[in-house]
């Protein structure tokens, strides 16, 4: 299209000031953190004036006050909708500072999670973390997310793939989207991996998380291997991840099938404490957790079209499953006790 043809689209209206507005927004975003602090000091210069040595000012500005100012600014951004989410609905600020912060004590002090093999997770670029699923409610995925965000040198966000039930359920759906979870389907997995994200998948699904206590640490079927073909198409490594400790937090002794069918849930568990102790039964047992990331399985050496070769996909799925199963046995042998 020739440049000469200029048609007044914004006839009679003020032309949009994208560049200026965008530049302002960028500047505001960049200097927001420092700007807030600066303003909080500036707001009351007379009161802040130290009576004695001026050198004391930095010492005098208490940490808690700066934090409070930061918290106020955070609340303001939330209330005015001044936040950025990505196309999947992931809200990094809310995830890091609020949602994960709420469960972090559980990670640090309750389950005392020990992470091993973080060097197997690349510092940048796409990778697919495949883990065993257990624990009645998916706390294992939350703990893995915290492990990678807090303890990986590159502080990586784990983008998880969830079942459609997650996105049908009120509140769970909202939290899942905000923490970066998306629907477990090939389109979403490949899109995330293509963007260079670290993607987490729990292929056992409800079969794994809702299995009876007697079958603990016995891996269930690994879906249909969809995760393997997604990794093959994106050419990213598959990192097997073995989680020990999650099986014991809510030991499932039975399943109230009728109630589950009524509520539209995959299962309603009976544990030693639930539903006998009422809400107290929701408190998980304080098992000691180990999360171990294994050697990555490279996929870029496979020929083009490998993702469409069902035999190869099955074999690779089995290989990942076996690796996790053997790692679980090894970790269990070395474990002294469930709780320490």
């Amino acid at each position, binding site marked *: *299209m020739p440049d000469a*043809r200029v*048609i*007044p*689209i*914004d*006839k009679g*209206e003020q032309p*949009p000031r*994208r560049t200026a*507005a*965008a530049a302002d927004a960028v500047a505001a975003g960049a200097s927001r953190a420092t700007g807030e602090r600066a303003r*909080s000091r500036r*707001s*009351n210069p007379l*009161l802040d004036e130290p*009576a004695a040595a001026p050198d004391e000012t930095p010492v005098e500005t*208490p940490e808690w*006050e700066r934090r*409070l*100012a930061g918290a*106020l*600014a955070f*609340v*303001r951004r*939330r*209330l*005015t*909708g*001044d*936040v*950025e*989410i*990505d*196309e*999947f*609905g992931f*809200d990094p600020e809310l995830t890091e500072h609020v949602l994960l912060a709420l469960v972090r004590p559980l990670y640090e002090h309750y389950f005392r999670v020990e992470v091993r093999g973080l060097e197997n997770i690349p510092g940048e670029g796409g990778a697919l973390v495949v883990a065993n699923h257990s624990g009645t409610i998916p706390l294992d995925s939350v703990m893995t997310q915290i492990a990678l965000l807090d303890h990986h040198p590159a502080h990586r966000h784990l983008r998880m793939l969830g079942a*459609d039930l*997650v*996105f*049908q*359920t*009120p*509140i*769970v*759906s*909202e939290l899942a*989207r*905000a923490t970066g979870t*998306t*629907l477990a*389907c090939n*389109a*979403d997995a490949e*899109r995330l991996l293509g963007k260079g994200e670290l993607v987490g998948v729990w292929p056992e699904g409800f079969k794994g998380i809702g299995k009876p206590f007697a079958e603990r640490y016995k891996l269930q079927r690994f879906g249909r291997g969809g995760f393997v073909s997604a990794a093959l198409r994106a050419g990213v490594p598959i990192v097997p991840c073995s989680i020990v400790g999650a099986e014991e937090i809510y030991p499932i002794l039975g399943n109230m099938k009728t109630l589950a069918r009524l509520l539209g849930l995959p299962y309603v568990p009976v544990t030693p404490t639930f539903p006998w102790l009422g809400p107290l039964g929701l408190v998980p047992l304080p098992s000691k957790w180990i999360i171990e990331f294994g050697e990555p399985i490279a996929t870029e050496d496979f020929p083009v079209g490998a993702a469409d070769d069902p035999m190869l996909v099955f074999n690779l799925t089995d290989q990942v499953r076996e690796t996790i199963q053997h790692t679980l046995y090894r970790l269990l042998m070395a474990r002294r006790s469930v709780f320490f």
Partner: protein
Amino acid sequence: MGRVVMVTGVSRHLGGRFTQLLQADPDITRVIGVDVVPPKHDLGDAEFVRADIRNPVIGKVIAQAEVDTVVHMAVLATPLDAGGRAMMKEINVIGTMQLLAACQKAPSVRKLVVKSSTAVYGSSPQDPALFTEDLEPNALARSGYAKDSVEVEGYVRGFARRRPDVTVTTLRFANFVGPRVTTPLTSYFSLPVVPTVLGFDPRLQFVHERDGLEVLWTTTLDDHGGTFNIAGDGVMSLHQAIHRAGRPALPLPQPAAPWIGQALRRLGVADFSSEQLRFLTYGRVVDTTRMREVLGFEPRYSTREAFDDFVLRQGLRGPLSADTVEAFEHKARDVLGVLRVAPRGGADA
């Protein structure tokens, strides 16, 4: 020879603006606007034909004027505009069939542009995060505007098969916002307290009316056939949008939502179909790679900028507007400043 363009649905805001836009283009010699009701805006030098596209008279107009480009913008989104759902379906589906039948008989027609909607994808928890143009939605639209759009697109595909010499472009627009456009969604955000579905924060995408007009205009002149998603960059969550409009949200439990929707519809405040409710529960985001790479179109407004412009120009204000909240923040900080100084002063004394 200049081009002769026929536009349907010119009496509504976007159609009227689009007609003005086409007249300013030197390559276009004649613009013929068609609608059932007389236009509210000035159409300039465009010729206006007051006709129902369901009427065979359209065929005569096309033949006499030797129309070479038809822009179909007469797919209605709101039953209130059309005078009932039955009438709306009649206009949308039967109207499109008649228009396409007339086009098929007219050898002069070389180009067809159809304004469709991303509503054709529906909204469900089983769909991928982003819809691409060739994706089959899991849950097909069962009612209202979405179903009409799906059917309209079906007829358009049929037409494209029967007249392979005509370049057919289908534009699937995300929700329009802007200084003047009114849609069910803009009336929804204008409610004093905005009801939402408890426990869901759907992702939304908007397209600014200016960008929408620009892409309609460029595709009318270009020869890019195919189906394209049109939306501003980035996404917003529903609650984020409500807060940016300065409104408080009122989350209602999911079973109560249809009931509230119906009440609002009966009051004539906002038009809530069950389709709209699903959209406000599960949201919808489309992939715009093809718009960028094939059409070469870059929207000037991102989703958020478009929405902010809508809030600013339509003068939406509420208890959660940015300045109110900021004033409150300053007040809170002042109070904290006093708190901080007070104990220290006491210690000094």
